[in-house]
């Protein structure tokens, strides 16, 4: 009860304070800007309602980009992790590069990808997929590497084939790590997709919409769009957490 009550009360208090400060113009004075540039929670809420069909339409575009990019990264990341797990040579060669590649700010190359591949959905999927690929691959590989060596020996003396050992011991061991990686990936995917749409989009999306609103100084709408993006990230994370609880029943 208190677990829910206290944070809810705190949130309500903060929103109330924000509302009062924005209405009185105190917040605008603090920032030294015109008061119409500082939206109050009620203005954001009404903007959310007034623009609901536009937001929904663009949310669908963005959601599709996230899901497709994330899906590609999931398949490729898990596949690559399995290959690296099976081959020590490849693992030794690739692992440092894989970790090192994270120092590259991939989002900086988003405009380049747009130039190379055009303004369609393709380059946006690519950016999301590249960003999601790393946490998925590294976590899946770490999960596979954490398999108990004695359990593998035991499986060998129980006449398990390589595939049976993978299926019955290694894959279930790695599963919680795979979910951890996927949850991290889906959270960063929402940030990545906004950058991808900023880099070049004629096909809409919430990131593109934020840019339009911002250029027109429609700050309430910017906040409303950001709220939708945040809810999308929380929703996707929650779905993965739910799937994990349904699949990983032994924890």
């Amino acid at each position, binding site marked *: 009860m208190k677990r829910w009550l206290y944070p809810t009360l705190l949130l309500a208090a903060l929103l109330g304070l924000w509302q009062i400060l924005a209405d009185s113009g105190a917040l605008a004075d603090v920032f030294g800007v015109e008061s119409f540039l500082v939206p109050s929670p009620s203005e954001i809420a009404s903007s959310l309602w007034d623009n609901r069909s536009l937001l929904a339409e663009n949310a669908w575009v963005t959601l599709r980009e996230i899901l497709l990019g994330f899906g590609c990264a999931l398949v490729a990341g898990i596949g690559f992790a399995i290959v690296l797990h099976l081959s020590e040579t490849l693992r030794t060669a690739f692992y440092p590069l894989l970790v090192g590649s994270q120092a590259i700010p991939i989002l900086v190359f988003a405009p380049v990808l747009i130039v190379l591949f055009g303004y369609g959905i393709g380059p946006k999927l690519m950016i999301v997929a590249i960003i999601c690929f790393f946490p998925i691959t590294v976590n899946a590989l770490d999960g596979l590497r954490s398999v*108990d060596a*004695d*359990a593998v*020996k*035991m*499986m*060998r*003396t*129980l*006449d*398990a*084939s390589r595939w*049976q050992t993978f299926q*019955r*011991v290694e894959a*279930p061991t790695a599963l919680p790590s795979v979910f951890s990686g996927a949850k991290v990936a889906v959270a960063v995917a929402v940030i990545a997709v906004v950058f991808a749409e900023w880099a070049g989009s004629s096909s809409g999306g919430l990131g593109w919409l934020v840019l339009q609103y911002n250029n027109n100084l429609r700050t309430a709408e910017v906040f409303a769009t950001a709220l939708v993006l945040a809810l999308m990230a929380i929703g996707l994370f929650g779905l993965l957490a739910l799937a994990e609880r349904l699949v990983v*029943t*032994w*924890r």
Partner: protein
Amino acid sequence: MRQDTKMPPDSGANSAVEAPPETPSPPAGAGLSAAGVEHSFGELRTLEQIDVELAPHGVLGLVGPSGCGKSTLLELVCGLREPDAGTIAVGGAGDAAGRLARCAFMPQRDLLLPWYSALDNAALALRNHGAGKAAARRQAAALFERFGLAGFEGSAPNELSGGMRQRVAFLRTLLAGKPLLALDEPFAALDAITRAEMQEWLAGALGEDPRTVVLVSHDVEEALYLSDRVAILSARPARIVAELRAPGPRAADRDAAVTDPAFVAVREEAMKALHEGSR
């Protein structure tokens, strides 16, 4: 009561290194024969001149100071490793694949897979052999009652007591249908009372379903009670410093057996050898 546990090895056991791998004949009984076995991990020498003979359905205890290489020896027997020198043959098969086909390994920790029920854990080898889920479960369930596990078929491993987990782990090893069971300190994680109960239980289980057993233990009493013979290993690099005949292997009444003067005398002898070997 066993009169002589030192029986001749299987035919051609020592010269079987080149023998092609063959399909194992389930629990028909396979002896173990090791001669001049040496092993090292790089610079670290673990085993030195190990000679062991064990007749089919015999039980050999391996006791030694911790870290002396007992578990390594067990892995060599099971064909999970190859020795640097010397030969090891199980049921006449001297190559690693042949030994692997004849040995089932029960690791120190029970290593029950948490994503399977107790029944599915026990049936693991049957599934590996290609049996369908239902058939494997049926076969394993038939043994649950005999092993005092009836009613716990569907339980998750973490719902079982330590003793029950070990029984499931042993059942899993048994159901692999291998002639030789390699048990690596199977009861080390249990409290003293449960351990004594489990030793008595294992003695009974082996009476009903005899197998060749190599039992690694750090507990002299456990090894002497369960085995026909106990080999005492020295500190690393491990050599066999003494080999003792157990006075009353797997007697029905454990408490009476371990307090018997003959048992106590052999235990003293074993402890002495163990102390000398650890220096």
